[in-house]
């Protein structure tokens, strides 16, 4: 009886606990604490943290791949095939060995199944992505195997952008279009961090993904890193969303350091009202221009402006409500938990993660400084001066960054209201980040 009891113990999850798992539970508790008790981006940090918890438990049927085509991740020559058609194999069984320039790569089964057809033979030369064999398994894939396709296939970030577009009023930007340049200047933080990351030894794909944290735009950061550095996705997503939540702590010291008291007191003239036609034409204009200039940004810009067109046209009320509520909420749950699912201890507890988190704060700081300095530069030429405090809102982080400008402005002059002025660079930052992400996607070779 005692033996049966111990045998049952082997079937529980306890023997599968690795040393990384308890450490990751600690990370999960920190993220949940920040989200629940400190209110830091709770809508995203809660699903991310909970997904991370599930990823760091010995779960069954949650993320497992279904049996199916066995694909070679590398190019090379087939050195050995260990399973013949008709034979059964377990998850992790060595199926084949591919060699390229003396470096062998083992291909292991990702699920339990039966080999049905072998498509290659020993000695064949194959390309990366070639199907080595077909297999069949009775077990379907886990829930999050399918849900996380939304990140891998880059479906979720553009859908989030649809909701963001439906929630965003571009009126302040249209009323004062010069603030577009503030949103552009903030992208200097992205470029500078890219530069710094490559100096620290990251590849260009990894550096682009790390740099985009400075854009303070979670969906864009996920979109870009899923394309250029999927192995860094968990660290980048956590850094991006954590720093977005920390905008009220990171930005003010930089803003105060770079502005004089006199500059902080600048009062901006009221924004002119913007009509419906102007907003509709703006949505079309941004879509056409940005896609013509940076075709790789189509998915992000296209969905952003589609959502905005829904909002402004006034005849698609049901679609606007769906984009603003149901779609963005459902996708946020799926996106957050899928990102959390990638935070396994093996992937997250690495020195790279600390480096990425460190570089993320540099990206935010430089982006903030660049926005403020651009506002000061523009003031050299403008008759109607811009309060440089709104330059910091050029990092996307809508609307937290704009609120920080408002709070800092009122700290200097309690009767100065900068919020609506800061919304201009704030939404310009969203467009700017999507454009630079498109530039990297178009030009970086992984």
């Amino acid at each position, binding site marked *: 009886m005692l033996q049966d009891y111990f045998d049952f113990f082997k079937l529980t999850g306890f023997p599968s606990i690795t040393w990384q798992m308890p450490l990751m539970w600690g990370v999960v508790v920190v993220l949940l604490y920040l989200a629940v008790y400190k209110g830091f981006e709770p809508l995203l940090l809660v699903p991310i943290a909970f997904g991370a918890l599930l990823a760091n438990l010995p779960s069954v049927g949650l993320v497992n791949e279904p049996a199916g085509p066995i694909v070679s991740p590398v190019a090379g020559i087939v050195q050995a095939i260990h399973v013949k058609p008709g034979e059964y194999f377990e998850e992790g069984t060595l199926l084949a060995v591919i060699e390229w320039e003396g470096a062998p790569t083992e291909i292991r089964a990702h699920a339990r199944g039966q080999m049905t057809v072998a498509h290659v033979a020993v000695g064949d030369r194959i390309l990366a992505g070639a199907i080595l064999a077909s297999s069949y398994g009775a077990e379907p894939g886990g829930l999050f195997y399918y849900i996380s396709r939304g990140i891998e296939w880059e479906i979720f970030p553009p859908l989030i952008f649809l909701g963001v577009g439906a929630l965003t009023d571009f009126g302040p930007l249209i009323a004062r279009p010069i603030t577009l340049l503030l949103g552009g200047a903030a992208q200097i933080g992205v470029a500078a961090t890219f530069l710094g990351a490559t100096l620290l030894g990251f590849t260009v794909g990894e550096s682009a993904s790390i740099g985009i944290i400075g854009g303070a735009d979670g969906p864009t950061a996920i979109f870009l890193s899923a394309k250029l550095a999927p192995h860094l996705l968990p660290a980048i997503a956590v850094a991006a969303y954590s720093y977005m939540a920390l905008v009220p702590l990171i930005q003010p010291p930089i803003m105060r350091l770079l502005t004089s008291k006199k500059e902080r007191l600048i009062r901006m003239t009221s924004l002119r009202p913007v009509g419906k036609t102007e907003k509709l034409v703006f949505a079309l204009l941004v879509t056409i221009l940005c896609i013509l200039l940076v075709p790789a940004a189509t998915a992000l810009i296209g969905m952003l402006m589609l959502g905005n067109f829904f909002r402004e046209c006034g005849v698609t009320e049901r679609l606007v409500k769906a984009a603003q509520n149901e779609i963005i909420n459902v996708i946020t749950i799926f996106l957050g938990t899928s990102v959390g699912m990638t935070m396994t201890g093996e992937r997250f507890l690495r020195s790279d993660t600390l480096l990425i988190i460190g570089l993320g704060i540099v990206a935010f700081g430089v982006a903030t400084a660049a926005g403020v300095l651009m506002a000061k530069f523009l003031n050299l030429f403008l008759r109607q001066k811009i309060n440089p405090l709104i330059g910091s809102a050029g990092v996307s982080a809508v609307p937290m960054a704009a609120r920080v400008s408002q709070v800092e402005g009122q700290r200097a002059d309690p009767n100065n209201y900068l919020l609506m002025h800061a919304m201009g660079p704030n939404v310009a930052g969203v467009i*700017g980040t999507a454009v630079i992400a498109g530039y990297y996607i178009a030009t970086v070779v992984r």
Partner: protein
Amino acid sequence: MNVSLLATEPITGHPGFLENLAYQSVGIMVVLTSLGILLLCVTLLGRFLAVPAPAASASAAPASAPAGADSCPGASGLSPEVCAAITAAVSEVLGTDAAIQSIRPIQPVPPTNPFLQAWSVEGRRQIFSSHNLR
């Protein structure tokens, strides 16, 4: 339709500092050019499509109810700020053609049973809290 990528040379691996610096400079130029073109277009757009500034309604509003406590019709006790706020609200809701004939303060509500008042306060609280304000 798929379009060929930018004419920029692709970058890969671990580029040298100067090559990377040039690459980043081009990136920032791409962003600023995109937003700069957008800036020009939006500025031109504003020239043609801008709606009249609220100055028009502001000038119409005083015609309906001139600012100032003395000119606030039928309400000598009102401060100019309250009168201006009421005038603006009427102008916004009913349009600039509306004219305020008189402003009379609502008579104070007679005191009610505090117990019943608590019920109505709770009712109002529930109604307001049921709306998801954004």
